């Protein structure tokens, strides 16, 4: 999985070519001949609105790529992306640590789990977007707000999956440990936690991207810097910024992809004994 990059490149290039072809056909079918140059630039006011919107709906990918590497866009796209990634990373670490600790705490007693788990789940139902204004009003700092929301969206999948993993130990192995009079602590560190690791990494991979999204959602509610801010601002300016908007979406996706791959790499290193990673 991801060990050799060639197949990924082949599939990605294939998808891009299909997109380019479909977008080109869509453009040809929906934009009349005299308006084509104006519809590409998006700035020509004589182009009818339904034709100007075509590039916003399905842009030509080579023009999005050009926007990504346009020197004017380095700051609003790439620098903004790094600001978002930094908050997401810190929040991910914080939320992951809290989620793991909470899971270990909750499996200690059925009473604790029954009392608190419904609230762990319920807490996640509170939309991030509603918490934004409250977190802002408490800390008045976009970096703290971003970090907290990223932590908030990370801890839930980590808690749920770790609990599931801690409860998935092989009963025979548990019986064996018991027959050797292993202490509770030994059972945890030698059996239950290693058995929970595949579940934990599953959650971490989901959380890696969720924390990026969480940070972006916060930025959409009025931050000064970040890729979410770029997405929001380019949307306001409409079709003239179609490629910058899609470029920002691409940058946001790249952040998630890099983060996800980093966690997947760590998983492969830690879980060498899993069937799918054995030679």
């Amino acid at each position, binding site marked *: 999985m991801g060990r050799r990059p060639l197949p990924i490149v082949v599939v990605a290039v294939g998808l891009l070519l299909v997109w380019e072809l479909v977008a080109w056909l869509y453009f040809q079918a929906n934009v009349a001949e005299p308006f084509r140059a104006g519809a590409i630039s998006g700035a020509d006011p004589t182009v009818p609105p339904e034709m100007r919107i075509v590039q916003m709906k399905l842009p030509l990918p080579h023009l999005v790529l050009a926007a990504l590497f346009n020197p004017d866009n380095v700051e609003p796209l790439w620098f903004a992306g790094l600001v978002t990634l930094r908050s997401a990373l810190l929040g991910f670490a914080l939320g992951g640590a809290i989620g793991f600790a909470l899971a270990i705490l909750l499996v200690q007693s059925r009473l604790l789990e029954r009392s608190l788990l419904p609230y762990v*789940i319920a807490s996640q*139902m509170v939309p991030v977007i509603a918490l934004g204004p409250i977190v802002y009003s408490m800390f008045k700092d976009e970096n703290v707000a971003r970090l907290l929301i990223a932590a908030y969206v990370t801890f839930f999948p980590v808690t749920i999956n770790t609990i599931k993993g801690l409860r998935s130990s092989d009963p025979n192995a548990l019986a064996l440990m018991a027959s050797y009079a292993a202490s509770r602590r030994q059972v945890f560190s030698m059996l239950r936690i290693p058995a929970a690791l595949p579940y934990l990494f599953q959650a971490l991979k989901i959380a890696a991207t969720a924390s990026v999204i969480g940070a*972006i959602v916060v930025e959409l509610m009025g931050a000064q810097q970040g890729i979410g801010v770029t997405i929001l601002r380019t949307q306001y300016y409409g079709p003239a910024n179609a490629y910058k908007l899609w470029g920002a979406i691409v940058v946001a996706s790249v952040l*998630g992809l890099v983060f996800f791959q980093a966690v997947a790499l760590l998983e492969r290193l830690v879980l060498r004994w899993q069937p799918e990673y054995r030679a």
Partner: protein
Amino acid sequence: VKIIAPACVFVTLLGAWQLGVVHTVLRLQEFQLPYPDQIVQTLIDRRDVLWRDAIEFTAFEAAGGLLIGAAAGFACAVLFVSVPFLQRGALPIAASLNSIPIIAVSPIAVLWLGFGQPSKMAVVALMTFAPMVVNAFKGLSSIDRESLELMDSLAASPRQVFVNLRVPNSLPYVFAALKVGTTLAMIGALVAEFFNAQRGLGVTLSNNIQVARMPAAWSAIVVAAMVGLILFAAVSLIERAVIPWHVSFRAHDAD
């Protein structure tokens, strides 16, 4: 004991909130965080509108989008397991779909599908697709080697290995993805409504936050949380019915 313990926690927390402990500790004002009795009053006064918004719009979009996204995700996982090239090439790409920020996609979904429920369903389906691909693939592929050798020694056809070994092995992972998916779906539907819709809980939330009517906004949050819990409970019930044999349920009985 099953109900009493969470109920005790609930009453304690609610009491602390109502008596102003939460406000004092976090140094909040009433306009930032309303008191529970104000929220309950709003819930009672506006129950008809809230539930109609919840069922016809937000819950409908969340559940519909989740079903579409999960079905598409499982189908892709099956495809990736059967075609090793796609497994190496397309799985990381499918998984990375998860990182496309929904907010950015939702105005584009509106351009394509309009302001109604279909555009929200599309956003929810996109959000729930990737976790299902990742989990279903993991479940379909992390097969015990001995089971596989046993199936081989019994001359099982690839189809039989798939139906009798891979699919049952994937179910715990599939349900884990569905559970995460219910929360993602509710958040996706709400956030998509928050910015580009005419009706739904997200719209209620957005409109009331803008005019600082926090009890009304929180009543929408409470209803959204309830709908989310109902969806989650529904998935859990189905999970128990479908995979009662899983270790995690057996361990529950042993405790």
